[in-house]
């Protein structure tokens, strides 16, 4: 399973997000390396189609669908939680759902 974690240093809490991903993977019994990518320039953000920090991709797919007209840049990312609140981090449930959906699809 290809798992990528992309982050921007100036956006806080990426360490919390990575730890959250690692915890959920452990709970789900998923043993896979995480490709941790530090996005440092706007050019790199464009090349990587980086919509904001943190971004988690499983099997090449973002855990939250990204609109076709998304803006790529060095920025923090806003996640809409299941209850409608905005958070700088994906919730554990969002990560868990994405992992399970990927496993079910392969």
């Amino acid at each position, binding site marked *: 399973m290809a798992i990528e974690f992309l982050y921007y240093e*100036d*956006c*806080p*809490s990426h360490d919390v997000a990575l730890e959250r991903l690692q915890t959920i993977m452990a709970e789900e019994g998923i043993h896979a390396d995480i490709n941790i990518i530090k996005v440092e320039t706007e050019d790199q953000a464009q090349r990587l189609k980086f919509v904001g920090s943190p971004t988690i991709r499983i099997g090449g797919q973002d855990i939250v669908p990204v609109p076709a007209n998304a*803006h790529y*840049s060095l*920025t*923090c*990312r*806003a*996640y809409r939680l299941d209850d409608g*609140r*905005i*958070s*700088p*981090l994906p919730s554990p449930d969002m990560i868990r759902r994405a992992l399970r959906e990927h496993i079910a699809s392969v």
Partner: protein
Amino acid sequence: MANLKPGDQAIPFSLPGVDGKTYALADYSDKNAVAVIFTCNHCPYAQAWEGRLIQAQADYADKGVQILAINANDATTHPGDSFEAMQQRAQEKGFNFPYLHDESQEIARAYGAERTPEIFLFDKNGKLQYHGAPDDNYEDPNAVQHAWFRDAIDAVLAGQTPAVTTTEPKGCTIKWKQPA
């Protein structure tokens, strides 16, 4: 790093608001407390805390407390923080405080603000009493254990020094304009 420490005097400013009016800090010299909050549209931390700031203004307005929100982000690199977008957000979210545009970023630099949101709370004498984050939990308002901003307001209204005068602001960096 902030250019003000607890006890320092507020730095004056006069900035345009999303309603077309100009707002000066001096206009609020009759208030018991003024919170100058550097914030913006796009930052998820600002968005996560936004409702709590609106609630704080609602709860403390009749006690002579005034929030003044300032967006200093470069709209060139972050179009979601343009003045037009500010106007839209203020209306959609029902901002009950002035939302001001620091287009030149002069005020943000003068204050030494670095993050959004970042709070500078001043007492009725214009002295800084609290600087930092709204509380200790950007993700979940129901899980807040330390409501630093509210606690500081309560202390200031009681004529006391807040128990906590400084916390580390948590949020996106202010998007500075790059030299041409």
